[in-house]
């Protein structure tokens, strides 16, 4: 290097340095203030109105709403139905999910990649779409499967009735069993094969090892996923409504929904909402407690090479079993939607002159409702995903890097939406925004607010996991090289988080597109979303158009997720 110049950076007058320094901390304070303000508006404000509403609103403090709800015999039916559905979904998810997880993680079953993909597909199909597909498949008289059975056996009536508690339970479980597969197989992957091999060398049979060592090791993950399934099933408004409401099978979410129908009973709706919140939060705490005790899971050390069990002669029966399950959870529902969307009349059967693309044409170009709904959905889901990821990044950054006093409070506020089922959040938002003079209620803005609130935890979690992988020294290196805080953020931290943020964006986007509970409560004429349009069209019996719209949702979902996968894999090469 040439002779080093004495640079005059360090000899700047101290006053100027001081000024620049203060500006630095000001921007940090701004970040903090913005995040706090957003959380107060999005989370605290509607929650406040929800609690206040259940206690008599602004007029006077009273428990009468709760008393009214508790003394209503209809409540017990709804509560018991809800618990039955959630418990049933838990059982189905565990019985199917644990073996599938074990097969994927620990055996030489062929087509693991396909099984993994089917699991995430089952997770990504919005619950109300599965429900609608099953209406087409198993409606008491003209469901496809019923008609098939009738034509084959000559029986008078098909055996299936999806409008029933078992029906609702089954469809609900399809949407949530992925939690069990994903959490269990992650836990199985973290168990070192050594613990199994050491049992084997001592003479234990494979079955004994599985039951005595492997499964007990992943029990915390099993319990945690079961609780998650339970919580999610409690709140799956779509399938509860589509399959339960026509035959007056009420659950807590649908009961809250019908209390909002004319004449609305806000008091009872909020009181009931609080009960659902209590149930949800209780389960989530239990889940957190279970996960916190799982210390022995991590002692596996580095997850070394896994011994894969040779299934031998059981290989093909296992494959058939898995795909039989996914036939119910994925193949049939998607298949019936696809076929129906290509038919002029769904009752006329699979013939060539019954084949048409008209349904797609109709929903995309002819019907102003569905076109509007699609555009609304894109706008709202896109904005919610963008803002949600940004807010999530902000909150995660505050938690991880700025660590100011009170960061815990922020983090806590950001997790609250996890405890608010969609329908409950919608109730809170209605109460909170309907009274304001600003025109938010009745516009797309209220939907945006609702989605944003609902998906804050998702945004925080994806930003959080992206940020965890970036050593703070990378940003410090930017600072010491002379880059301001904002600059280091923009040039170093954010680009490195890109992969995680893109993934978070598409997760929020996809979920927002398929969100029914919130939208159905908050839409007005002109602000329908695609989920609302599908729901309304199905109530009118236009199943061909419903199927076409559903296929569009599924295709968009698949495209977005596929694109994300490609993008995030190719982006940052870490070392």
């Amino acid at each position, binding site marked *: *290097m*040439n002779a*080093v*110049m*004495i*640079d005059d*950076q*360090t*000899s*700047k007058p*101290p006053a100027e*340095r*001081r000024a*620049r*320094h*203060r500006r*630095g901390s000001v921007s940090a304070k701004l970040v903090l203030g913005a995040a706090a303000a957003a959380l107060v508006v999005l989370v605290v404000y509607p929650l406040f109105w929800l609690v206040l509403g259940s206690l008599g609103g602004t007029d006077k403090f009273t428990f009468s709403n709760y008393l009214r709800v508790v003394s209503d015999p209809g409540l017990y039916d709804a509560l018991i139905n809800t618990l039955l559905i959630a418990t049933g979904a838990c059982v189905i998810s565990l019985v199917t999910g644990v073996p599938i997880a074990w097969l994927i993680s620990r055996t030489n079953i062929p087509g693991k990649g396909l099984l993994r993909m089917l699991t995430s597909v089952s997770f990504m199909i919005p619950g109300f779409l599965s429900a609608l597909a099953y209406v087409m498949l198993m409606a008491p008289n003209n469901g496809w499967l019923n008609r098939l059975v009738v034509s084959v056996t000559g029986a008078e009536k098909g055996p299936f009735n999806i409008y029933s508690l078992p029906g609702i339970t089954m469809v609900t479980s399809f949407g949530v069993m992925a939690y069990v597969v994903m959490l269990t197989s992650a836990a199985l992957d973290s168990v070192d094969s050594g613990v199994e091999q050491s049992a084997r060398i001592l003479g234990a049979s494979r079955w004994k090892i599985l039951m005595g060592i492997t499964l007990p090791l992943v029990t915390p993950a099993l319990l945690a996923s079961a609780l998650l399934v339970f919580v999610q099933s409690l709140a799956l408004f779509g399938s509860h409504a589509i399959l339960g409401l026509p035959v007056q099978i009420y659950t807590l979410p649908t009961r809250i929904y019908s209390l909002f129908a004319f004449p609305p009973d806000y008091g009872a709706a909020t009181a009931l909402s609080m009960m659902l919140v209590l149930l949800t939060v209780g389960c989530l705490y239990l889940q957190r407690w279970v996960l916190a005790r799982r210390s022995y899971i991590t002692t596996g050390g580095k997850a070394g090479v896994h011994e894969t069990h040779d299934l031998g002669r059981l290989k093909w029966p296992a494959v058939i079993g898995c795909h039989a399950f996914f036939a119910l959870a994925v193949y049939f529902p998607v298949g019936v939607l696809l076929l129906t969307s290509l038919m002029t009349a769904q009752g006329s059967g699979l013939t060539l002159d019954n084949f048409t693309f008209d349904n797609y044409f109709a929903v995309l170009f002819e019907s102003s409702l569905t076109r509007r709904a699609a555009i609304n959905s894109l706008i709202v889901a896109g904005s919610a995903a963008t803002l949600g990821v940004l807010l999530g990044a902000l909150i995660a950054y505050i938690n991880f890097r700025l660590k100011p006093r009170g960061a815990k409070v922020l983090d806590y506020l950001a997790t609250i939406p996890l405890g608010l089922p969609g329908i409950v959040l919608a109730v809170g938002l209605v109460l909170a925004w309907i009274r304001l003079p600003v025109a938010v209620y009745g516009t797309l803005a209220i939907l945006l607010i609702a989605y944003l609130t609902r998906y804050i935890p998702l945004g925080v979690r994806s930003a959080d996991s992206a940020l965890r992988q970036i*050593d703070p*020294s*990378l940003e*410090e*290196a*930017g*600072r*010491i*090289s*002379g*880059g*301001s*805080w904002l*600059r*280091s953020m923009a*040039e*170093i931290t954010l*680009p*490195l988080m890109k992969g995680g943020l893109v993934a978070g964006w598409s997760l929020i986007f996809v979920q927002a597109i398929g969100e029914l509970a919130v939208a159905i409560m908050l839409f007005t004429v002109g602000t329908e979303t695609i989920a609302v349009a599908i729901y309304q069209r199905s109530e009118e019996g236009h199943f061909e158009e419903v199927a076409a719209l559903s296929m569009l949702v599924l295709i968009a979902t698949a495209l977005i997720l596929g694109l994300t996968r490609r993008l995030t894999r190719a982006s*940052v*090469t*870490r*070392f």
Partner: protein
Amino acid sequence: MGTIEIKGLSKNYGDLRVVDALGLSIADGQFVTLLGPSGCGKTTTLRMIAGFITPDEGTITVDGAVLSSPDHVVSPENRGMGMVFQNYALWPHKSVFQNVVYGLRMQRPKLRREDMRDRVAAILDTVGLAGYGDRFPGQLSGGQQQRVALARSLVTEPSILLLDEPLSNLDAKLRDKMRDELQEIQRRTNITFVYVTHDQTEAMSMSDRIAVLRAGVLEQYAPPRQVYFRPASVAVADFMGLINLIPARVESYDRPTATAEVELDFGARLGVPAADGFEPAAGEQVTVAVRPESITIRPASAVDEDPFAEVSRVMMLGHLCYCVLRIGEVELRVQTDNHVDLDRGDRVCFDIDPRRASVFPASTTSESAPAKELV
């Protein structure tokens, strides 16, 4: 210029006092090492100099301007320093060129594009990475990443460069090489280096002065030879390398020469210099510290009046050899040349070079057992 003046610097984390009233003045163009075991506060001190941590007490002044005090801290980007991080902290999404040019892009007034390119090329050449500009950090070896980190911190020609254990992730051979190069770069550029390490060999081989820290307190701040041969405390002596701590009793003390006449535990009498600031009284129990290389072994002859010792262990390390001698209750580690022909149980005589030993107040703690480092 790059003079650093640290006064009364303290930092607490909860109840833990990580840095305790640290005072240090670093002259322009010096290579100063903050040395100490993990948790001694050396990295915290470095990060306070960089401006990442606000001190609880005290000030850091650079070239006459107070950069850090409890009231205000000039942010890192406005200090014009360079820093090399332990994990290099290269930006994985930027090429080598983009990593290195970053600091130049931040400079105001703006530099010309061609100037930037030239300076990056020059500095890459200096660190031996000419032509690597288009690679990404993930495509480089650990040693190359280290050089990129160095280039990135040097390209702005800072007057102060902070280095946080930069060599700890390299293998032994590469570490030796980089040690030479770092020293060479420092001598050539005359940048003030503040170097943090827990490796006393690194510290001694490169530094102009070493600041030995222990539990947040500065134990000694002196040139390497002095730290090694005239340690300020038993703790420093112990940390700087293997040392024998022999219990002894003072016969007499000669103030003008600062030399104490002591009788060692096993009977020998020596005139040993006292540690700085220590004036032992006659009859006082003290500790005599002797390095293994300041003891020589010779064959025992029957007429010798010197005490005999028994060889209890021989450890051949290749370039040199350690013997453990047992005499009475005392075990002595002695460095011999690698051709010595000794066996367990041999009886030998030995001489201690008294001018290379030091007298300290009697050590009460168990830290007088440095043998563990040998194994």
